[in-house]
């Protein structure tokens, strides 16, 4: 069965990963701009990174038959210096019209500071003023619940937001209901030690339904697994879910969400319209 990984950091992965992902059925990935493991020293570093995401990584993926899409943004870990963040945000519009740019992401909160909030508000305003979809990173561990609530507060106070064009990512048991009740898509990330396991993700599918769920690996430079989505598919199969239900979560749903982005240009391998 083909699958889509709607959140993976291809820039941190090897060609071996791409080859095995393709062999397992991956046909489409979405790569959000994120923290590369170190703070960048200037706006030019971000500019080059945005070029890498929109020019080089799509070609690398295409060599393995994987279509590559991207989200543009500045992550919460580099959002504390509001002045610097605004300089980076000023770089973004020139990239938003490029092919297969899905919108503004991954943006969000890390330690939930006032400065992070100020940068996030500027990013939300950019997204809404250019009719972009948004992908939100929610904080790690003890900050997740508080940060998720704060992000949803910001969205609820902004009348221009269409929650159907928003994904609240890295949801877990204590935050998934919040995202869904706000009308947003809920992303679940499969990580070896933090976030969710395939078993817990299948639990959440069974408890909340799969209508607005997206399952991703968020595989990057840290402990993570680029085959996490197939692992989840296998878990679902073991638990008695049929092919149609599995396909909805790992293929139909991400396709439906991405189709709402104005620059999405994917042609499914089965010839159906995107």
């Amino acid at each position: 069965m083909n699958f889509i990984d709607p959140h993976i950091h291809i820039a941190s992965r090897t060609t071996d990963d791409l080859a095995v992902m393709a062999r397992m059925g991956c046909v489409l990935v979405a790569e959000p701009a994120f923290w590369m493991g170190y703070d960048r020293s200037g706006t030019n570093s971000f500019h080059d990174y945005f070029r890498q995401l929109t020019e080089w990584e799509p070609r690398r993926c295409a060599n393995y038959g994987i279509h590559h899409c991207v989200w543009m943004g500045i992550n919460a870990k580099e959002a504390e210096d509001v002045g610097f963040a605004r300089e980076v945000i000023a770089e973004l519009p020139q990239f938003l019209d490029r092919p297969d740019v899905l919108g503004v992401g991954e943006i969000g909160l890390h330690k939930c500071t006032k400065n992070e909030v100020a940068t996030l508000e500027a990013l939300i305003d950019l997204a809404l003023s250019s009719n972009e979809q948004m992908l939100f990173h929610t904080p790690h561990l003890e900050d997740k619940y508080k940060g998720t609530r704060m992000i949803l507060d910001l969205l609820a106070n902004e009348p221009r937001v269409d929650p159907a064009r928003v994904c609240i990512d890295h949801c877990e048991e204590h935050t998934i209901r919040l995202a869904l009740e706000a009308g947003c898509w809920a992303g679940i990330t499969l990580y070896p030690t933090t976030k969710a396991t395939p078993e817990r993700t299948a639990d959440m599918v069974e408890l909340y339904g799969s209508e607005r769920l997206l399952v991703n690996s968020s595989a990057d430079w840290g402990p993570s697994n680029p085959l996490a989505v197939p692992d989840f598919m296998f878990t679902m199969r073991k638990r008695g879910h049929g092919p149609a239900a599995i396909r909805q979560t790992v293929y139909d749903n991400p396709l439906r969400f991405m189709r709402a982005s104005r620059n999405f240009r994917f042609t499914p391998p089965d010839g159906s319209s995107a």
Partner: protein
Amino acid sequence: MFTPCSAAETLDREFLTFRAKLVDLAATLDRIDRGEGTPTADPRYKLLRQGLELLAAQEGDRASRMQMLFSLPYDPRWRTDTST
């Protein structure tokens, strides 16, 4: 159409994994005990102990309640809270 497994089927499927996780937790607690010093005043240790109690509770929704145990509180007035 998905038909949920019975409780007995789920127990059959999960028993060995569950057992292994419990043994791993027990061994980790032993390892902490064998170390020099006592972490009982460490708030993280207290949280872990509360987590073990939560596991043994009879009420459902344990995963969400466990997550909340390890979460910072949310103040709906955060916009006006100068300490945030």
